[in-house]
């Protein structure tokens, strides 16, 4: 006869996977704001209905008023230096609810922080307050028809404005333009704001370009040296003469994809972020801000968890095999969340490895697509119940349309595989813990 087993009693754990009461409180606050200020059927800012964009703009201003929009920013720029984990909670809650910040997350997550690091006092004063107030939309001018994953091959050129006399320059602002003594580099004629260029070229896949006020533009200022050299970041107002935006009809809906044409757009040294010809290093930092990127797993988990309620009694009528796949997707959602937490925890110690971040990106983008397949099958196999059920069905359909792009956008899954394999194979050997972790760095890939 066996002895009756003792109950499990444990001492304090060294591991902890619950973010605790502060996270719960933050989630609760964000969810209450969403419930009160975002319509239940909201599926993002980028629809044919301008009211959806207005929802996002209003919500951003609300978050700004509540001190929640730029909470991660340093105090000197109007934030409160929120921890990486607080940022994680915000990222999860916003993406799960179809990102009610609209396009603002780009300004908050990486445009603002990059300007903090590389901007002049004038650029900081001009750009950071509107981002912090949730009043401005930025778009990213990186990808081109001939330069996607191979971003450094871009051809949009900023050529010295030989004939410019500065007559087109806007009126001066204080403080005066900088003089960094590098007039001989990167070409450019002079104007009251230093050197001037004319930009010619085309960008593509530019989200939000139709509604953006500013473009974070990467253009070639020199053709000498390696292709990564001779690139410069320009902060360009989208209403500048010579810019034309053409929407691209796509399955994700309006506003997601656009072409942006630059036909002699005049920029000056005042519009340069960082160093002339030094844009590639800035781009690497931008990509570093996106190491974790969108918390795609959060929307997957929310939709998967809501499926049984949305189907009501019909849930039990689903094929057992489909409910099994649903359970499997929940496991994969948890897996992706934990892989994201691994990256965040290493960010906290400054030890992020491409092994961690690329593994997460591969797992989460595949989750996005596989969960979309399962959810679409669920809402097709049975009637959804009532208004909530109908809203759920539309949310699933939107998720499925959007998930198609997840392995392509912001660095394709192939680029992530290249980064991961490079890091795995470059490692000097397996550590004694037995985990085939690599420590060797690999160059970051390009974003679209």
């Amino acid at each position, binding site marked *: 006869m066996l002895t009756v*087993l003792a109950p499990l009693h444990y001492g304090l754990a060294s591991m902890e996977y619950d973010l605790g009461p502060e996270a719960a409180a933050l989630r609760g606050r964000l969810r209450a704001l969403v419930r009160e200020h975002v319509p239940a059927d909201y599926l993002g800012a980028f629809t044919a209905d301008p009211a959806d964009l207005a929802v996002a703009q209003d919500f951003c201003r609300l978050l700004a008023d509540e001190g929640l929009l730029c909470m991660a920013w340093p105090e000197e720029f109007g934030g409160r230096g929120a921890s990486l984990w607080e940022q994680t909670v915000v990222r999860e809650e916003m993406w799960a609810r179809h990102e009610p910040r609209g396009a603002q997350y780009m300004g908050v997550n990486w445009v603002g922080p990059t300007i903090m690091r590389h901007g002049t006092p004038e650029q900081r004063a001009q750009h950071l307050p509107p981002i912090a107030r949730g009043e401005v939309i930025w778009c990213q001018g990186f990808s081109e028809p001939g330069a996607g994953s191979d971003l450094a091959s871009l051809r949009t050129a900023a050529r010295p404005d030989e004939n410019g006399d500065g007559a087109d320059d806007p009126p001066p602002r204080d403080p005066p333009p900088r003089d960094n003594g590098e007039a001989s580099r990167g070409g450019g004629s002079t104007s009251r704001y230093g050197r001037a260029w004319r930009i010619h070229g085309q960008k593509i896949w530019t989200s939000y370009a139709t509604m953006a006020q500013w473009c974070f533009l990467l253009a070639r200022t020199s053709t000498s040296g390696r292709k990564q050299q001779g690139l410069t970041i320009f902060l360009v107002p989208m209403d500048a003469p010579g810019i034309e935006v053409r929407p691209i009809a796509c399955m994700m809906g309006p506003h997601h994809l656009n072409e942006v044409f630059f036909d002699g757009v005049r920029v000056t040294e005042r519009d340069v972020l960082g160093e002339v010809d030094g844009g590639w290093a800035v781009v690497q930092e931008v990509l570093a801000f996106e190491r974790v990127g969108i918390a795609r797993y959060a929307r997957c988990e929310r939709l998967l968890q809501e499926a049984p309620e949305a189907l009501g009694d019909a849930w039990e009528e689903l094929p057992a095999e489909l409910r099994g796949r649903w359970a499997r997707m929940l496991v994969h959602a948890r897996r992706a969340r934990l892989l994201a937490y691994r990256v965040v925890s290493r960010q906290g110690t400054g030890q992020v490895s491409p092994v961690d971040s690329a593994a997460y990106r591969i797992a989460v983008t595949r989750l996005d697509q596989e969960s979309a397949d399962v959810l679409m099958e669920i809402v097709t196999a049975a009637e959804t119940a009532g208004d909530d059920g109908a809203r759920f069905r539309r949310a699933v359909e939107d998720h499925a349309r959007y998930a198609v792009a997840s392995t392509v956008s912001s660095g394709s899954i192939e680029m992530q595989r290249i980064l991961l394999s490079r890091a795995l194979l470059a490692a000097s050997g397996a550590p004694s813990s037995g985990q085939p972790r690599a420590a060797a760095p690999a160059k970051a890939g390009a974003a679209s």
Partner: protein
Amino acid sequence: MTTVTQGAVDGLAAGGGVLMELSDEAAEFGRTALRALEAAGGDELAQTAEREPARRAELVVPVLDELGAWDLDPRGSADELEAAAALCRAAGWWAVPYPVAERLCRPVGGGADALVVVAPAAPAAPVAGLDLRLAAVALDGRRYAATAREPDGPARKSAFVVSLDLAPLAGAIAGAPAGGDAGDEDGAGADGAGDVALGMVLGCWTLLGMLDRAMVLTRTYILEREQFGQPLARFQGVQFQLTDAEVERAGVAELAGYALWSVETGRPEAVDDALALRLAAVEAAETVFRVTHQLHGAMGFCDETTLSWLSRYSQPLRRLPLGRSATQDALASRLGRRGLAGIFGPNAVMGAG
């Protein structure tokens, strides 16, 4: 082992967050175990045991005795549970031909030497030829005394798996509820569920060690093996297969940590978490062994490569108590409509959970 006192999150705003690492003591114990098992024969342990099945206990048990493995009380403290997990991972690395996880899970009280999680319809475990008193527990929390039958084939084919005869224990419940938070009057139901979670989680840590090793072996092989004048590792078709396998392995490592934490903190959904881990682990094992075999080419089938041994001895861990499909069914049945604990849904833990 010392008791680790750090546990609570330091505070979200202060930078505190999830703690995903085993305690330092547990991790060091795992490294010590890895070295000790290597010194005792390493990869040759499985080969010798297969040649001389009667010796397999004497090949392994003295090392574990010296490590103090049986002094660990994985039911008694979080730190010792983590040390047990680290030991299982080390055992998996060397494909140790001995039921280490099962012995670490043994019931309290000395009534049995090992605990196995079984599917009552076809109970089996890799315990052939061992003089062990066995306890068994089914996924529903029912407990049994178990007796191993005689092996019906050589270890080379069976990987030491034998069928078990089960005898229900007096006092065992006739079906513990999902979640394991209730039971009969003496609390046996809750304990039974706890046994299920503990047994499955430590088994998955063993399988994780095998996946770790298979990946490292394959990395080394493709860096050394040349075709068309260059290492296999230069071919993108090879690289991408390696990355897909690594994503699977890395995911299991994270879920293994989570499920261990779930057991050590006595969470009511620990069995859900154990099944979730097991589903991911079995699925990952399919990918990892398919890829690592493919990248080893014909060498991977040969006894002179360690992968061949790892692959064969991973089979019991992947098939028992339930294979991939049955594990998925069992998880879906348990979850019903409530889903896994996470940040959303009726089973949500708002912090992160």
